[in-house]
């Protein structure tokens, strides 16, 4: 079965490769709007072969599987960029070909996962914070992650069904960095999370907006774009940036080493760096953009939303997620299993 799929795919791509005026884009599902792709094809005459993935692991495995990459532009999450750069899988970008680079928010051009900003173009981002339905908890003081440990939230919290996200709050509440490689600190974080378990009602990351709208969960951790979507339909829902810091994930465009259509890849990148195009994307999916100039093209309710566009002071409290070493990742996946089993 797998072989067949692979054969069809390679056939498809060999045809695609033969045609010169194309760009092969491989991105997270739901993060590049079809509108953007269509507009690009119309404006430039370059055909986009667009495919999507649902996990960084899948993208990484596919890029590792063949020596000559088929992709011209891929969109990994921040913490995979440091790994890919280290392993020479992606190339340093030529800024002279990216005239719209200046549109980017300077806060995202020198992130920890790509300190010189040479490898990646930040595209969409998200922040993980506390969500609360004020109808159920009207006066609760919720400012920090540690507040979620309070016994009054017994059996009521929503946690994201994602090991690194959950470990982030385990580490942050102990004052450690979420990018901790120290196994002892990870063990402490695990014990800290065990103490949180009596409060956990469910793990979910794929249908958070509907759970919040229908009030099946009323408090927990969530991504800001999901909370924004829910708050449009249920005004009691509030998003809080925790004072004991939080994590920012950024999904970025990068160009694989030896990309077959390098020139078209640059044209694509420069195209999506336009403020108007970035704004078009935000209006579709509500994921905040790293494109500062795009603000001018956004409707005021999105541009001024405290959930989607936090102030620079708030943003400075965020951590960028970076890559962990294999030992730390193994430890997290083992602890995660134990957490779910208790």
């Amino acid at each position, binding site marked *: 079965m797998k072989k067949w799929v692979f054969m069809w795919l390679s056939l498809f791509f060999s045809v695609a490769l033969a045609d010169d005026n194309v760009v092969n884009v491989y991105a997270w599902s739901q993060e590049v709007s079809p509108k953007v792709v269509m507009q690009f094809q119309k404006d430039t005459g370059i055909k986009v072969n667009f495919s999507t993935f649902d996990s960084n692991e899948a993208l990484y495995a596919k890029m590792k599987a063949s020596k000559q990459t088929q992709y011209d532009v891929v969109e990994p999450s921040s913490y995979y960029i440091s790994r890919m750069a280290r392993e020479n899988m992606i190339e340093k970008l030529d800024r002279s070909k990216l005239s719209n680079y200046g549109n980017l928010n300077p806060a995202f051009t020198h992130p920890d996962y790509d300190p010189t900003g040479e490898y990646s173009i930040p595209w969409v981002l998200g922040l993980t914070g506390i969500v609360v339905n004020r109808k159920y908890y009207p006066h609760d003081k919720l400012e920090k992650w540690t507040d979620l440990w309070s016994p009054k939230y017994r059996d009521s919290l929503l946690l994201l069904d994602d090991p690194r996200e959950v470990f982030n709050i385990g580490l942050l509440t102990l004052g450690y960095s979420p990018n901790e490689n120290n196994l002892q600190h990870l063990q402490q974080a695990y014990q800290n999370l065990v103490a949180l378990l009596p409060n956990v009602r469910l793990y979910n990351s794929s249908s958070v907006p509907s759970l919040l709208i229908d009030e099946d969960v009323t408090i927990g951790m969530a991504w800001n774009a999901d909370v924004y979507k829910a708050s449009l339909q249920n005004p009691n829902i509030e998003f809080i940036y925790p004072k004991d810091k939080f994590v920012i994930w950024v999904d970025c465009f990068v160009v694989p080493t030896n990309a077959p259509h390098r020139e078209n890849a640059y044209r694509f990148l420069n195209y999506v760096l336009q403020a108007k195009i970035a704004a078009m994307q935000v209006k579709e999916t509500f994921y905040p953009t790293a494109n500062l100039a795009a603000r001018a093209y956004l409707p005021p309710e999105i541009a001024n939303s405290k959930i989607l566009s936090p102030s620079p002071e708030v943003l400075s409290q965020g951590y960028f997620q970076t890559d962990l070493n294999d030992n730390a990742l193994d430890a997290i996946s083992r602890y995660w299993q134990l957490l779910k*089993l208790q």
Partner: protein
Amino acid sequence: MRNKFQYFSVGLITTWLCIFGLLSFLVMVVMSFLQHDPDHIALWHFTLQNYEDLFDPIFFKIFIKSFYIAFMVTAACLLLGYPFAYIISRLPERLQNTALLLLLLPFWTSSVVRTYAMMSLLKTKGLLNTALLSLGLIHEPLQILFTNTAVAIGLIYNLLPFMILPIYVNLERFDISLIEAAKDLGAKYTTIFRKVIIPLSIPGIVGGCTLVFLPAMTLFFISDLLGGAKALLLGNLIEDQFLMANNWPRGAATSVLLTVIMAIGLLIYWFKSNKRINYDAAI
């Protein structure tokens, strides 16, 4: 001619079961003694490590929890299913067929779909809460979804027919004259039920309990959907070993252990029951 057909059909079923039942189980048994290897499914190297891993207190805890849930679900199914099966078996024959058809009707849709439907019933703003609230029976919506109660409701709902059918088959062949004889001899109805009906329907009860108990420990999607992705059942543990931890040998060891426990239970019953219950012993 008839003989040939018999050989063919029996042979076909035997081959089918050997390939997809026995052989796949044997693959799991072999797998459970192999070494875990992150890059491949398993390493061709004999080890007992997978079984030693299962003595971890955490795994022990989930074994106990899963047994407890399965026990409660089986008991509930028995309490609900026994009277139900008894009533059906006493209906006129035409009504019996209709009742059985209605009992099996839910199987026309997949149980995953029915579990999603169950979610929309139990939600905070679901059908159940809306109905109870508008009737004034409750003032706050009941929080059932994503609790152990929801998992239990889902399991009982899904497994109840498996309890009713074997008991019904047993009771349907029940000889009514035995009850009349007991009445003639002056037994009260409770005594008849305790000393005649129950002992004679033990095979049906055991059959039903076996069909309910094992799935109640392994239907992982029910605890995933209704329990909020917290691993409650042994099935979640096995699923997790195979899919999340990518540790096939340990997953295999877990499911082999489960099979062994079930087999021991059945063997005990088999030896104790001494093949058949005779009427003398029952009375």
